[in-house]
């Protein structure tokens, strides 16, 4: 997976997972995205994106312990792989390069 092009929502999901670190699973990722971006992603879109990122090798997942408030269902924790970190870094660098020198209100430029 040398050069993974990431869509906007994929980048948002990857960044939310990186922020959450060990606590990243469906419900917390969704809450993090809602809290930081103000948009409430549809669960269908989020889980499809998580599956796609895992298929691309940018995420890996593991099942946690079943808990009572989830009706005895396990959490599926996700973690960004080294390839995922590489892909998100590249995508963000591209954004930063494009932003550089563009006067947008509320953004500071290096």
């Amino acid at each position, binding site marked *: 997976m040398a050069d993974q092009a990431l869509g906007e929502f994929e980048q948002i999901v990857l960044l939310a997972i990186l922020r959450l670190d060990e606590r990243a*699973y*469906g*419900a917390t990722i*969704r*809450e993090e995205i809602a809290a930081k971006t103000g948009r409430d992603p*549809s*669960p*269908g*879109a989020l*889980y*499809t*994106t998580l*599956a*796609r990122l895992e298929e691309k090798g940018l995420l890996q997942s593991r*099942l946690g312990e*079943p*808990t009572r*408030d*989830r*009706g005895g*269902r*396990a*959490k*599926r924790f996700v973690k960004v792989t080294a390839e995922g970190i590489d892909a998100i870094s590249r995508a963000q660098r591209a954004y930063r390069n494009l932003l550089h020198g563009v006067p947008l209100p509320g953004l500071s430029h290096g």
Partner: protein
Amino acid sequence: MDRGRIAEWLLAPALGAARASWVVGDLLEGAVGRGPRWFWGNVARTWCGAPWGDLRTRPLFCLGLAARGALLLSAWLFLVGRGRALVWDFVRTSLAHSRFLAHHPKEWLWPAVTAASLLATVHAGRWVARRAQGRLLAVCAAMALVYPLVAFGFHACWAACASLGPAPDLPVPDFGRFLYQAKDAGFIAAFLLGVALLRRPGGAAAA
């Protein structure tokens, strides 16, 4: 039966059994303090959103499987049609002395043909469901798009081949027939969904 099991049963065709389990767990957890309306609203959003996402991200898989399923279904229905024609020819020539059989073909052939067509549809549905890898709803949606084209092509090929022989007994495909097949596709997509949903909630899912 608790709402989690019902939701899991509803979401299994859209997400696959394993994914549906932890997605429902997430939704149950999120519903604490928000109520059943939030929970069911999100089940509905997941149910609608997942097939669309699968169609966008795995179009070749969904359309390819739908095309193969449509081909299988067309072949089955074609065989049912041929079987009906053979039986009817046999009855006309060999059992002409029986007034009822010879003069009321629809009455006695219809139940058998309908049953055979339904069995063929169920078989095609299960064949697709076993291969859908948790994307059954997306494949059903793709099937609704693809089936009219495949069935139309199938009939066009048959009519072209039959016209080389002595007596073509199928009508030449036209746009009216195409629309007729398109009308069927909605029924078939719903039927495939019915096949997938014919499972005990919370039990092992085929999809």
